[in-house]
C-alpha cells in the first residue's frame, strides 16, 4: 500500500494521500491540460486502497477553481468513494470553501448533490453567507 504526494502547481492541486492516516487532501486549483492524465495515478491509488475494504477514509478538499474536465475527474473520484461508502467504508468528506467565491461554492454544492456519504461544506478563512 503506497501513499501519494504531488506538490501543488499553478494548474494542478496538491494531492496528499496518506495511507497511514487514512486521509486524502486536495488543495489548490485544477485546470491541467490533460486532467485525466493528472488524476489517473490518484484514481489508481484510491481504488487500490478502497479495494482492501478499509475501515475509513477522510477526504479534505479545498479547490478554488476546477475546470470542466477536472470536475469530471473529481466526480469520478467521488463516485469511487460513494461505491466504497455503499460497501460499508466510513467515508467523510469536508469541502472547504471561501464563501465569498460564488463559483467555488456552487462547484462544491453541485458535487454535494450527487453524493450520499457525509459531505460537509465548511467555510474557510473569509466570512461569508452560504446562499
Amino acid at each position, binding site marked *: 500500500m503506497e501513499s501519494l504526494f504531488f506538490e501543488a502547481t499553478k494548474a494542478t492541486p496538491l494531492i496528499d494521500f496518506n495511507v497511514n492516516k487514512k486521509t486524502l487532501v486536495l488543495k489548490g486549483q485544477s485546470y491541467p491540460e490533460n486532467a485525466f492524465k493528472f488524476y489517473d495515478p490518484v484514481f489508481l491509488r484510491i481504488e487500490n486502497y478502497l479495494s482492501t475494504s478499509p475501515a475509513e477514509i477522510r477526504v479534505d478538499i479545498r479547490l478554488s*477553481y476546477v475546470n470542466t474536465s477536472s470536475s469530471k475527474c473529481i466526480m469520478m473520484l467521488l463516485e469511487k468513494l460513494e461505491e466504497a461508502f455503499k460497501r460499508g467504508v466510513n467515508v467523510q468528506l469536508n469541502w472547504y470553501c471561501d464563501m*465569498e467565491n460564488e463559483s467555488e461554492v456552487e462547484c462544491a454544492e453541485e458535487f454535494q448533490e450527487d453524493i450520499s456519504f457525509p459531505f460537509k461544506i465548511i467555510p474557510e478563512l*473569509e466570512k461569508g453567507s452560504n446562499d
Partner: protein
Amino acid sequence: MNTLKRFSLYDKRTKWVILLACLSIAISMLLTGSLSYHIAEKAIIEKLKTKDLFFIVQSAAGKIEGRMARAKETSLMMARDPFLSDWVSTEERDPTTQKLAVEKLNRIATDYDYSNTFLASASTHTYWAEGGMVGKLSETNPQDAWFFQALQSKNPISVNIDYNKERHDTFVFINALMGNPEHPLGVTGVGLDLKDISQEFSTYRFGEIGTIWLTDHSGKIHLAANLEDRGRVLADFLPSDVCQMVLGSDTHGTDQPEIMEYTNADGELIDLVHQTLQATDWQLIIQVPRKETTGFLASILRNSILAALLVLIIVTLVFYLVSTRIANPLKQAIQLSEELERKVNERTQELTEQNIKIMDSIDYAKKVQETIIASDQELVDAFKDSFILWLPKDIVGGDFYWLRKIDTKVIVAVADCTGHGVPGALMTMAVAPILNHIVQEGYHSSPGEIITELNLRLKSAMHNKGTRITDDGLDIGICLIEGNTLVFAGAKIDLYHKSHAGVLRIQGERFSVGYLKSDVDQTFQNTLIEIGEDDFFYITTDGFLDQNGGPKDHSLGRKRFISLIEESSNLNSQEQRDYFNQALNDYRQEESQRDDITVLGFQIR
C-alpha cells in the same frame, strides 16, 4: 567555426600580453644596463685619466729618478773623494795609491750595485774602471767624445745614455767632474744598467698591449717594456702630431704628467701619458688602449645581456605557466558556456521553427473551425441586433456558437466542449456536424429534444470503444426563436434574459451531454419565453464566469456577469461587446485566460 575564431582571438590576446610584458622588461633591463654601463665606463675613464695613468707614470718616473739620484750622489761622492782627487792630480803614478784607487772603484761598484764605476783623468786621458785600467781616451774617437764634452761643459754632473746595440742593453752613465769644474781633474761616476728597470717596466705595463717607453729628447727609445722597441724612435710608433706634442711639450720643472688621447692607425682609441724625468730631458711615455681599460666592461655587458635573456626566458615561462594554470580553466569555462550557448541557440532556433509551424498549423485550423461557427452575416440576418465575444484560449478552442435558419425559425446554440486548444477544437468539429444532422432530420421544434438527441448520438459516436481515459462531452445552450417566442433548453449552460423587469437567469439542466456518465434517458427542459420589445438575451460558456482575477483571485462569477448585463443596458450591441471585453480584461489584469470564452448577446425585436 564561430567558437574557434573567438578562441584564437583570446589566445592572441594572451600572447600579446606576454609579449608586451617581456618587451617592457627587456627594454627596462637594456635601459638600466646601458645606463650603468655608460656611467661605469665614464667613471673608469675618468679614473684612468686622473688617477691611474698619473700614478703609473709618476711611480715609474719616481723609480727611475730615484736610481738616478742615488747614482748622482755616488758619482758626486766619488768626484769629491780627496783620495781619488790626490791620485788623479799626481797623474796616477803611485802604484800603491793606484791599487787602492782601483779597489775603491771596485768596492763602490759591488757595494752599491752598479754595473760599473769609472774614473777618467783629464791629464793622462786614462780610463780607469772597477777592474783596473781600461785604456786611453782619444779625442778623435767619437765613442770617447762624452769625456771631452763633459770636461768642456763645466757641468759638475751630467748624464749620458748609451745604448749598446750589440748587447741590446742601455747604460746610463753619470759623469761627475772632479775638482774645480773650471779646471776639472777628470771625470768619474757610475754606470747604470737599466735592464732591471726595463724589467720593472713590464710590471707597470697596462695589460697585454699597453706600452711604456723612456725616450731622450730626440725621441729615441732607450727603455721599453717591450725590449725590441729599444733603439727605435718614437715616430715609429706614434702619429707624427702626437710625437711632436710629446717631445715638444715642455714639462721641465713640473711634476705634472701630461695626458692625451689619440686614435691610432687601426682606429683604436689610445690614452697616452708622458712625463719628463727630473733633471733630464727624458720622456717617460705610457700608453694604454682604451679597450684595454674598459675591456672588463665588455664582460659586464655580455653578462648583463645574458642575465636579461635569462630573465626574459624565466618571465616568459612564468607567464606561460600562469596563463595555462589560471587562464585555462577560464578558457574551458568560456568554451563550455559558448558550447551551451550554441546548443541553446540551436534549440531555440529549432523550437522557433517548430513553433512557427505549429502556429501556422493552428492558424489554419482556426480558419477550418470558423466554417462551423456562425458567420457575422448569419447573426446580422437572424437578429435585430447582436454581438459575439469569442475568445478561444489558444487561437482555436472547445467553444463554438452555431446558428441555423429553418423557415421562420432561428436555432442558435452556444456550446463548450471539454478541453480547449486543439483537442477542444476537434471536439467542436465532431459536434457541429452532429448538430447539423439532428436539425436536418427534423428535430427543430424543441431545443430540449435536440440536446437529448445530441447526447445520444455523441455518446454512441465517442464512447463505443469503451475507453476510460477519454471522457469527453459538452455543455450546450440552445434557443429556438420563432416570432415573439423563444424556447430555451440547456445542458449546464444558462440563458440570461434582460427585459424591463430586469435580468432573469433561465437555468439549463445541470447535466452535460456526451459523457460516459451522461444518462441517455436524460431529458432537457424547454423554457418558453415571450419576447418583449428591446429584450436582450445572453448566453455564456463557463470561461467568462470562471476567469480568475480581482483582488482575491476569485472567479469572475455569475453575480458580476449579471451586473455587467445590467450596467450595459443602455449600450448598443457593439458597445456591449466592448464593455464585456473591457470588464473581463480589467478583472483578470495580469492573470492568463483560464479557458475558452464565448459570450453571445442578441436582440430579436
